[in-house]
């Protein structure tokens, strides 16, 4: 018993592990709430593209500061917001299918980001941090920014909950109620952009999509209403964060992928359990 407690407490005697836990929790909750909209509105591809599109901005920040990481949050934030508004305009005006246009622009931007970073020496390490996260080296300053902007996302969703619900479920009603649909859609995109930057250090660009869709999808399977879906998604990422960090600490797995793997495992278990239950209720005799 004593050994188990020691084993459980051991990782979190280190400040970097506590910071990592806080970072994963903040990122996870922001991603869960925004991820619910991503799943319900079918914006998964958009979210993935947006995450990739901020790389050139961060790269420029990197080059300008000569490899310092403290200002990168702001560079990321600026690029993400610009990219989210750009995506909105591009997808409205496009003559090709939306996802094609988004794909072209954002893959291009991603290439630009990699090209810029590749001009630095030792770029492989820096790039891998950006792509897969480096939650074990989050600074106190970054953690503060993450908490502030994470809270901003939650408050904004809380304030405009009913409007975001209506534009997602029934755009026609939104129009007949004369809600400012375009402004609200842009606001949702900006919140998605902020969430991505908040989560950048936790899981990185390449794994961002997992944090956006997986917990929300898991929660969708077991809940009846949107607020519950958001809450269960938060719970699922929180648990994934804790378990993922243990996995990372004891099995020396990179933290970002470890958290994502636990998230995915939760989804698979939930999916199997709900399918099983559904099959049982369907085959039950009608009273």
């Amino acid at each position: 018993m004593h050994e188990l407690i020691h084993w459980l407490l051991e990782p979190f005697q280190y400040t970097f592990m506590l910071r990592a836990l806080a970072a994963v929790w903040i990122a996870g909750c922001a991603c869960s709430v925004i991820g619910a909209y991503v799943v319900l509105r079918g914006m998964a591809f958009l979210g993935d593209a947006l995450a990739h599109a901020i790389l050139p901005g961060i790269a420029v920040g990197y080059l300008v500061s000569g490899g310092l990481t403290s200002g990168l949050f702001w560079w990321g934030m600026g690029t993400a917001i610009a990219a989210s508004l750009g995506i909105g305009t591009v997808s409205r005006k496009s003559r090709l299918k939306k996802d094609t246009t988004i794909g072209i622009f954002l893959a291009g931007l991603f290439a630009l980001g990699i090209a810029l970073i590749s001009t630095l020496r030792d770029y492989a390490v820096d790039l891998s941090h950006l792509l897969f996260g480096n939650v074990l080296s989050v600074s106190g300053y970054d953690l503060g920014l993450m908490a502030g902007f994470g809270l901003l996302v939650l408050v904004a969703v809380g304030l405009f909950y009913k409007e975001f619900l209506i534009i997602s479920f029934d755009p026609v009603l939104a129009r007949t109620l004369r809600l400012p649909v375009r402004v609200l859609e842009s606001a949702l995109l900006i919140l998605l952009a902020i969430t991505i930057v908040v989560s950048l250090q936790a899981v990185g660009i390449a794994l961002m999509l997992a944090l956006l869709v997986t917990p929300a999808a898991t929660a969708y399977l077991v809940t009846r209403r949107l607020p519950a879906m958001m809450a269960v998604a938060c719970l699922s990422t929180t648990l994934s964060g804790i378990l993922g960090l243990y996995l990372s600490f004891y099995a020396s797995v990179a933290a970002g992928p470890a958290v994502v793997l636990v998230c995915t495992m939760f989804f698979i278990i939930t999916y199997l359990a709900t399918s099983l239950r559904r099959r049982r209720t369907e085959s039950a005799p009608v009273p």
Partner: protein
Amino acid sequence: MSRHLPFFSEHADHEAAADALTVSGLCHHYGNRPSLKDVTFSINRGERVAVVGPNGAGKSTLFQLIAGILEPDAGTISIYGHRPARHFCIAYVVQRSQVDWSFPVTVSDVVMMGRAGEIGPLRRPGRTDREKVDRSLADVGLYELRNRRIRELSGGQQQRMFIARALAQEATLMLMDEPFNGLDFQSQRAILDIIDTLGERGVTILVATHDLDIAARRFERVLLLNTGMIGIGPAAELFTAGRIQAAFGQHSHTIQLDDGLLIVQDSCCSGGNPPDA
């Protein structure tokens, strides 16, 4: 009421003397293809009108124009004396096939959405709103099912849920797009009865349908549409062999019987040629 947030609009006052709906010279195109040509009519308060025409006749387009979701290429629409964009008392019930029934919301969540215009931004639903939602649900006989997830409802119940939402919205003009599609007779009757009650309460209702029988039996007037306007009036006067032919073309057949006109209708496909083509 605090609606003074940028981008959120105020509701227009209704002119006391104005008709519920006046449409004049309305034209709309999708690309080069005309979807509505020179449509003119007006509708009194509390009137129930069936909008009848084959698929592709422009019924949905007309509704979207009246609701202010589309802008006309020519012509004007006036609702209680103002253009559509200044009202949020218009309820547009879309076809059931256009709704995402897997969305995680309950019946009363959906009905509460109708209150959003009245509640205004940055505010939560209060007791009055919840009471209105409950009463609207009771009016359409769905109160017992208020906590069900929407995908658990039958087709008729889904349609009634949207009527309840229009009630919660305090809509004075209701547009319903093909509400009877895919419903059994009993569900159709339930909805028609509710529509009658609403008419008595002064709600103006336009129902798009391709069912001539329902249109003739249960509505005060019928608007016959096939891109152009073929006519508007009580079914007894409006339904002549010539007009039915103009609306439905090869997909209908009329037989003159001693006690009236028998119309045999093909339930599929598009209609005849537009009247002036």
